[in-house]
């Protein structure tokens, strides 16, 4: 039965497809393969999600070596949720990428682009699926190395420098993670995360374990771009090819958030991280800083992609804010925002990619009156922008609602006020786009623009419609997130 191999199938498919693409040396075939692989990964992930929806755990022993000796793939409701998210975004972006990549990447590099794309997908799915600490590091590096290449393919030469800086900071982050895993390995003698969790309580008071927690926290926060470790993110997102920005913005940081959750709740347990240590307070302070400072910086950006990149840093602040509450509602808010923000930012960067097709860099002074010539794109950006703000009827509202609930539950009314206040900053930067696109006369250059090709527009609008659909009917996403939160808290105790 193939279905018993599902936990590893969605990782193996893209890994096998990558060398085939290199051998085929043909952009069209590579694109077909990448699309097929992403969609089959999505199908597998959805099947897994349905399988673990009741809170059960699927364990898969690679090569039939029983855990904890062999590498175990362990799917529970937390990572099944994430697998669906990552493969869903990958599938939509794969459809989108054909026209976008054709315009932005030299023709002879197309097959290599798609090779890197599926490798990055394999890495991200692998991080989510694996139950082994060292395996996690290896997949982290697979996804990181391929994303450095993808970013460097941007048209602007600044993409090279952005990729280099990301490589330096990303490698430092990954090395910190591997130091943390190493210290835990030294203390427990196991790399299997579940086994590690069972053995840690005997040694939690020792210094190596605390050092491991510190290394893991800093390393993972570098990868998830928690303020002030976000410096690699704005340039990387701004200068990467549009399809890459959309894919990475929607998935890479989200997977890192998952890794943080996994280590905090499953491996260390919340009593170690939040009760004995002031991690909640630290995360809270950094999240607030991200929400306010990054949003403020975003307001003053001239480049639209950079603006939304800084907004990503701010939105990550909301996710970590949810984690810092250490409550079921807070975790639900964090996980649901993971999904919602991925949809929103995916939609935004995909729509902007349609503009970038003709313009290259998108600066506010170049897109005055854009709504006249690209009405569908502009309207999509406005809808996704409303979701960033958190207007009722969009996914952003659902996340903010649960965040505010969690804040009130924790007895911090002032925090609820700050969440609303920081949303007002989002109003300012989204309004900047509305003002420029709708209330200015199009210049001659702008009036020559036309809507993006149908495949790009359709893929982008799938995301925009998702933003509204899951905003109106949040039962699937919130249900999945609540189940995931319950799983995390259940194992942690």
């Amino acid at each position, binding site marked *: 039965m193939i279905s018993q191999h599902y936990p590893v199938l969605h990782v193996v498919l893209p890994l096998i497809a990558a060398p085939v693409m290199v051998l085929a040396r043909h952009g069209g075939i590579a694109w077909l393969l990448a699309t097929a692989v992403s969609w089959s990964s999505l199908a597998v992930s959805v099947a897994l999600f349905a399988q673990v929806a009741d809170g059960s755990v699927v364990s898969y022993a690679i090569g039939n070596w029983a855990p904890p000796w062999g590498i175990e793939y362990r799917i529970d409701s937390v990572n099944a949720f994430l697998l669906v998210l990552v493969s869903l975004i990958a599938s939509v972006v794969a459809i989108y990428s054909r026209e976008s990549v054709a315009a932005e990447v030299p023709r002879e590099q197309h097959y290599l682009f798609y090779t890197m794309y599926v490798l990055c997908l394999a890495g991200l799915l692998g991080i989510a699926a694996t139950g082994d600490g060292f395996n996690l590091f290896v997949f982290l590096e697979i996804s990181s190395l391929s994303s450095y290449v993808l970013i460097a393919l941007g048209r602007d030469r600044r993409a090279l420098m952005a990729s280099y800086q990301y*490589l330096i900071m990303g490698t430092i982050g990954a090395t910190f993670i591997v130091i943390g895993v190493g210290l835990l390995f030294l203390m427990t003698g196991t790399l299997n995360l579940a086994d590690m969790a069972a053995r840690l309580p005997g040694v939690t008071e020792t210094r190596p374990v605390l050092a491991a927690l510190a290394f893991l926290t800093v390393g993972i926060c570098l990868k998830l771009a928690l303020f002030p470790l976000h410096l690699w993110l704005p340039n990387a997102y701004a200068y990467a090819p549009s399809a890459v920005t959309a894919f990475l913005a929607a998935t890479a940081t989200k997977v890192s958030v998952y890794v943080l959750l996994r280590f905090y709740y499953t491996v260390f347990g919340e009593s170690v991280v939040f009760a004995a240590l002031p991690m909640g307070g630290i995360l809270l302070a950094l999240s607030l800083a991200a929400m306010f400072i990054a949003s403020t910086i975003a307001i003053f950006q001239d480049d639209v992609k950079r603006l939304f990149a800084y907004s990503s840093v701010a939105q990550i602040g909301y996710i970590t804010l949810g984690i810092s509450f250490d409550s079921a509602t807070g975790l639900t808010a964090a996980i649901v925002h993971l999904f919602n923000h991925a949809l929103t930012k995916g939609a935004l960067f995909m729509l902007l990619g349609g503009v970038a097709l003709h313009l290259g860099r998108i600066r506010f002074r170049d897109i005055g009156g854009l709504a006249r010539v690209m009405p569908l794109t502009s309207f999509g950006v406005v809808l996704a922008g409303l979701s960033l703000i958190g207007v009722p009827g969009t996914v952003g509202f659902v996340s903010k609602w649960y965040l505010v609930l969690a804040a009130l539950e924790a007895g911090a009314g002032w925090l609820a006020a700050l969440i609303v206040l920081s949303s007002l900053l989002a109003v300012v930067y989204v309004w900047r786009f509305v003002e420029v696109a709708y209330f200015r006369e199009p210049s001659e250059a702008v009036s020559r623009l036309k809507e993006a090709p149908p495949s790009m527009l359709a893929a982008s609008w799938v995301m925009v419609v998702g933003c509204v659909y899951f905003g109106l009917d949040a039962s699937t996403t919130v249900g999945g997130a609540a189940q995931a939160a319950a799983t995390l808290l259940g194992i942690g105790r």
Partner: protein
Amino acid sequence: MTVAGHYSYWITIVIAMAGLYIVIARGNLVKKLVGLAIFQTSVYLLYIAPGKLIGGTAPIVAEGFAVYSNPLPHVLILTAIVVGVATLALGLALVVRIKEAYGSIEEDEILGQDPAPPGRTP
């Protein structure tokens, strides 16, 4: 256990800090990568050194082999070395491209060539 008894950890820390310092302090892109490689090397030592037991043998199930050194760290680090090589190779390839695009591999000269985007600092 004395301070000297932990000497392998001291060496690990010194190597790690030396590498990290080079990454931060040097403006030359190649030197930064060298620092990064040194930093990663310290992790290899962190994993390998505790795997060795004094008087331990290879892990053989037979008479006379009671104490053995753990072979797992070596296998892990073999993987980590491969990852490190790939990172270094990709980093150097990027530096080559940067040199072609900017004509320099000094960070400040490169950043000076592109006008700093507004709003870089709050």
